[in-house]
């Protein structure tokens, strides 16, 4: 179980780190003044600093409330059951992304839908295959044929002559 306190704290630290990374990146381009006005780094520098400061503020508030015994911060934001549900959705989705960049998006679509329907949703093979192949075929016809937009393809498409 993750309590709200930890979720808030970790997020605030992460956004603060983001702000500081921007500040550091902006410093490389100069934050001062030159012949063409403010240097390119100036605006990102101040915005990044603002993000870091606001994150620090959230962090301070969160820690302060925790010491003051704020009950809302003790509540769970993610219990075991929820984590399981999110994970069972997130992991196949990450798998889909990895397959997309290695095997191409059409192959990834088919494999991903087969996995989620057959092995997670426990549907029969016929329904699974019809949905998976139908979805991929729909996108192929709509994008490649109708809108003339190519999707990311992998090593498999040339094998079946597409």
């Amino acid at each position: 179980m993750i309590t709200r306190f930890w979720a808030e704290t970790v997020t605030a630290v992460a956004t603060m780190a983001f702000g500081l990374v921007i500040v550091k990146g902006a410093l490389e381009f100069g934050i001062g003044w030159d012949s063409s006005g403010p240097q390119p780094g100036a605006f990102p520098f101040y915005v990044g600093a603002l993000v870091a400061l606001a994150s620090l503020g959230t962090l301070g508030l969160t820690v302060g409330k925790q010491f003051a015994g704020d009950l809302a911060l003790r509540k769970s934001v993610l219990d075991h059951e929820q984590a399981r549900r999110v994970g069972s959705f997130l992991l196949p989705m990450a798998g889909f992304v990895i397959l997309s960049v290695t095997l191409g998006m059409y192959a990834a679509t088919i494999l991903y839908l087969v996995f989620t329907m057959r092995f997670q949703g426990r549907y029969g093979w016929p329904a699974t295959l019809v949905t998976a192949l139908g979805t991929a075929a729909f996108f192929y016809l709509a994008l490649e044929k109708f809108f003339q937009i190519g999707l990311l393809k992998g090593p498999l498409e040339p094998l079946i002559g597409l």
Partner: protein
Amino acid sequence: MENIANLMHGFSVALTTHHILLMFAGVLLGVLVGVLPGLGAPNGVSLLLPLTFSMDPVSAIILLTSLYWGALFGGSTTSILFNIPGEPSSVATTFDGHPMAKQGKATEALAFAFLSAGFGALAGVILITLLSGWVAKFALRFSSPEYFAVYFMTFASFIGLGGASPLKTIVSMGIGFTLAAVGMDSVSGNVRLTYDFDVLLAGVSFLIAVIGLFGIGELLLTMEEGLKFDGVAAKVRIGDVLTTAAKLPRYWVALLRSSLIGIWMGITPGGPTAASFMSYAMAKRSSRHPETFGKGDPEGVIAPETADHAAGSAAMLPMLALGIPGSATAAVMMGGLMIWGLNPGPTLFTDRPDFVWGLIASMYLGNVVAVIVVLATVPLFASILRIPFSIIGPVIVVICFIGAYTAASKEFDIWLALVFGLVGYVFKKLDYPIAPLVLAMVIGDKAEDAFRQSMIFSQGSLRIFWSNPLVATLMTIGLALLFMPLIGGLVRRLRGRGAPRTV
């Protein structure tokens, strides 16, 4: 009267078979997007945008705005029938809409929702017709400091009026601004903030952010809640619609009040969601029988729906006339305008009157089309939600990632969409507002340019923002909005603890 002539010209642009067909297509897609959880209006527009790159801008904007109207209607359908808001802005519709449906008055609830939504939208469009030319003319006097002041006002009102923690709003907005700054700097021509990653050279597209934050983030949240669709079956009969329509004039006070709230919240960047909640609360407070609210009072459907749609259409006014989007969806559309090579803002009215007035005319037609389409297809779309989420969810995932890739045909964007999805999930769980991030990404470069131009005029002195009455007024309003929470808190403390507000 000039506006009327312009509008007539607009109708001649919009009233072609091609455009009417696009309206139907857009509304149908929009209802679909609005009905499906995880896909909302900002998302739908982002997913469709890459397909419009090759279209003529007038056709493209008609398609996208029609999708927007459709999504707004679709969102209310699921609110009423399934108690699941398809859109954040239709949350308030569930309060009374679903109880009505459960009492066997689903048709009445739907008809009230659609008709009052149509009324609200028309109110918003009429306002745009009357005011947009005037606002644009006024805005032609703006130069960089005034523009920066208007941007400042927009973001200040998010911080001051947004309802979320001001610190979190600043974080969200700041992230948007910095992401907008990644890549080519339009003033100096330098490439900045890429940290030597080649993939960042072209910048971070707001489309990917919207797809990840709104689409994938929303899906993760939906999964976490273990959503069960438990709907009320609905058949829409024409007779029932007509009897409901005949009852509508009885609620004219609610209609007018809600339209005004919606228009106000649409022009100021409060957005449709805030508008619908505020309108619901106002209706309840001013009702003679507030105890019926939440148990199926028709006014509890009419008030949020009217305001929601009035805000949705009114949000197009600042986008067209000033180049400032009033909602996340308007922000995405404005990004689209820039991609099509148009320059949103007052000059658009003189440069491309056919575009502006064609769009405004299409808003009248599109909403009429939307009401008809949505009444005719509700049973069909309601049946989509009977497909188990374990099938629909992954299909939506595929749509989102394919949409992310088609935005620029970059492999990196697929990864980026996943990252934005996780960020969106965490931000939503911890009440970080997401709309400011998207708005900042779209207008970030313009705001920065306006600021830098002003600094060049003034040789680096901030006093330029108080150098004439116009810019000084804008900046002062901005500062007032920014410190509204602090002032409000002080006033409350001075008066002692007042009665707690109930919504």
